[in-house]
């Protein structure tokens, strides 16, 4: 056990306290703010940032090339017009969903264990949406005309095609980005004020002071803050379901076999939360290790998240099963062929990989010793991330490459620029994550203080 505190004999992981015993207001504040306010930069952090930043530069290079040469630098062509760009878009936007679920739904359901992971999960959402949003724009061919997607009075006297799910997508994703940003920022305000008050040098005081928007910790502030948080949580709650539903409409409204199914919305939402929790674990496990936050992100957190992953993974498995069943039950020859093609076609390897990553391997999470083994959990979270990426690859590419007409069949091979864009956005994501971890409190300080009060059972001295 490396949970940072000893487990009582015979006590189940699920019954452990959600914060290690012995913490007070002061220790919580000190421990979390020390990461931000500590002097100098750790070599490990600098190294990680440098690697991430170099991939971000690769993204810049790719985008520059894309703007000058066009989308031809990617491997897309008829019949596969939606290649990596859409695969990555859906993958990134799905990852964001765990953050919203944790911050909104679990807040409304009073799940206290969310407290120590919600801040970086929300940051993850925000950065994932930033990566996701880039892909459809770059895929448009003329990204500088992206504003044509929005309804505004224009010289063409045209509105966007409101009956197209691609337009709904614009609204869904932009709403999602806005609400996520607001939610995250509002949550940060009291902590920014704490940092302002604890900062040693003038520059930090001023920067955190400006960002804290004049927070003075007064009762009025707290009252308004609680109202705003609840309102935003209420706004964000439907987004957990709606955003990926709309993304799934991009496919299911089309008539391509493999896309045109009614299971898509729930199955996409479950997949999104599945991949999101996998990403929370992928990020949370190293953060907790390198910054010694085992007291706050305890074994119980990891265990609970593993269970959420297991549950959503089973829903995803059910989705796959229904696709098989519908191919048989509908009698539609194209659907039947799709299933055959997935299992035996030219991309069959990736389908079997997908089944292994998303369905077979995560079944290990039924075993408690797997759920409480940090290293194994980390590997499984990476596998699920990969599996969910493969799922989108299977949906996008494998459905398109065998169309209704055999004469229009084709293959899709990603080019080096496809990979550069993809790894580039991972670079962007990790760069933002590294900066976030260093310059903002990675765990909500004030919420942890509330938690200390709630779990210790006695009033703390202020």
């Amino acid at each position, binding site marked *: 056990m490396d949970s940072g505190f000893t487990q009582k004999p015979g006590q189940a992981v699920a019954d452990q306290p959600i914060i290690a015993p012995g913490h007070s207001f002061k220790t919580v504040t000190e421990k979390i703010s020390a990461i931000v306010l500590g002097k100098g930069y750790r070599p490990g952090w600098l190294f990680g940032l440098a690697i991430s930043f170099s991939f971000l530069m690769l993204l810049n290079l790719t985008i520059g090339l894309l703007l000058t040469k066009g989308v031809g630098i990617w491997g897309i062509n008829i019949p596969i017009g939606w290649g990596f760009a859409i695969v990555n878009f859906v993958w990134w936007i799905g990852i964001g969903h765990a953050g919203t679920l944790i911050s909104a739904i679990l807040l409304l359901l009073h799940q206290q264990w969310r407290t120590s992971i919600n801040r970086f999960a929300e940051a993850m959402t925000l950065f994932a949406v930033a990566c996701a949003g880039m892909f459809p724009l770059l895929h448009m061919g003329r990204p500088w005309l992206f504003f044509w997607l929005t309804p505004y009075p224009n010289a063409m006297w045209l509105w966007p095609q409101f009956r197209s799910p691609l337009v709904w997508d614009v609204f869904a994703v932009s709403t999602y980005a806005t609400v996520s940003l607001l939610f995250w920022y509002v949550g940060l305000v009291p902590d920014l004020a704490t940092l302002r008050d604890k900062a040693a040098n003038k520059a930090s005081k001023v920067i955190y002071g400006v960002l804290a*928007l004049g927070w003075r910790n007064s009762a009025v502030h707290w009252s308004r803050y609680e109202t705003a948080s609840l309102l935003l949580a209420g706004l964000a709650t439907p987004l957990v379901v709606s955003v990926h539903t709309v993304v799934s409409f991009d496919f299911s409204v089309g008539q391509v076999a493999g896309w045109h199914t009614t299971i898509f919305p729930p199955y996409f939402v479950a997949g999104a939360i599945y991949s999101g929790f996998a990403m929370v674990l992928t990020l949370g496990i190293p953060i907790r290790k390198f910054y010694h936050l085992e007291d706050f992100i305890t074994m119980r957190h990891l265990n609970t998240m593993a269970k959420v992953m297991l549950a959503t993974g089973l829903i995803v498995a059910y989705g796959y099963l229904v696709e098989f069943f519908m191919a048989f039950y509908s009698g539609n020859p194209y659907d039947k062929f799709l299933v055959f093609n997935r299992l035996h076609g030219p991309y069959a390897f990736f389908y079997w990989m997908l089944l292994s990553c998303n369905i077979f391997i995560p079944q290990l999470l039924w075993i408690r010793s797997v759920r409480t083994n940090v290293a194994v959990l980390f590997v499984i979270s990476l596998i699920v991330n990969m599996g969910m990426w493969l799922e989108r690859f299977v949906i996008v590419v494998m459905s398109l490459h065998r169309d209704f007409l055999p004469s229009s069949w084709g293959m899709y091979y990603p080019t080096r620029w496809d990979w550069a864009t993809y790894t580039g956005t991972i670079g962007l994501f990790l760069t933002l994550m590294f900066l976030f971890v260093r310059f903002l409190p990675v765990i909500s300080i004030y919420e942890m203080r509330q938690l200390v009060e709630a779990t210790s059972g006695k009033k703390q001295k202020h």
Partner: protein
Amino acid sequence: MSQIFHPATNIIAKVTIFGALIVAGLLGGVAYELEMSPYYTNVNVTHEQPVPFSHKHHAGELGLDCRYCHTTVEKSSFAGVPPTQTCMTCHSQIWTNSSMLEPVRFSYRTDKSIAWTRVNAVPQFVYFDHSIHINKGVGCTTCHGQIAQMPLTYRAQTLYMSFCLDCHRQPEKYVRPRSEVFNPNYVAPANQLELGKQLVAEYKIQDTRHLQTCSTCHR
């Protein structure tokens, strides 16, 4: 604990809340004005031409018919820019020594076309056909403006899609009798809408839904 900010900064904080809205509004306004400005649309902007040809003189004062020079306007998508020979039908007899017309005579002697600077143009992805418009009662001046009063030719309309759609959505607002199509001084009658509806029916102008489909103009 000492104050980090002077109390006056509160005002700045409050202003910035609305500042964002104001900046966004201003940017939108600037973008709109720029798109509608002659700088961008070329409306009312004259360009240097090899010969300062005046439609005002030829079509207005002398009363030449449009089709005397733009011969293919009734039969072709392109109205036609006249060859130098057309100019020389008159200018071999009058103004033969004018220095202003030397480029025309040079062109005639050397058989090299005069390189006019194009004034009215739609983008390449627009399929535009002059003949159908002329034959359905769309007058020259509807798009080209008061051409008979232009000493130097300039663009009279933006030729934006909104301009095209204005008529494609309500052709009765602009259609005139076929006999008036080439009249540069035509003034729409007071009962334009009534007359227009009648003409739309008479000329069998297609349903506005058809006129607005993408492939009508983007083929």
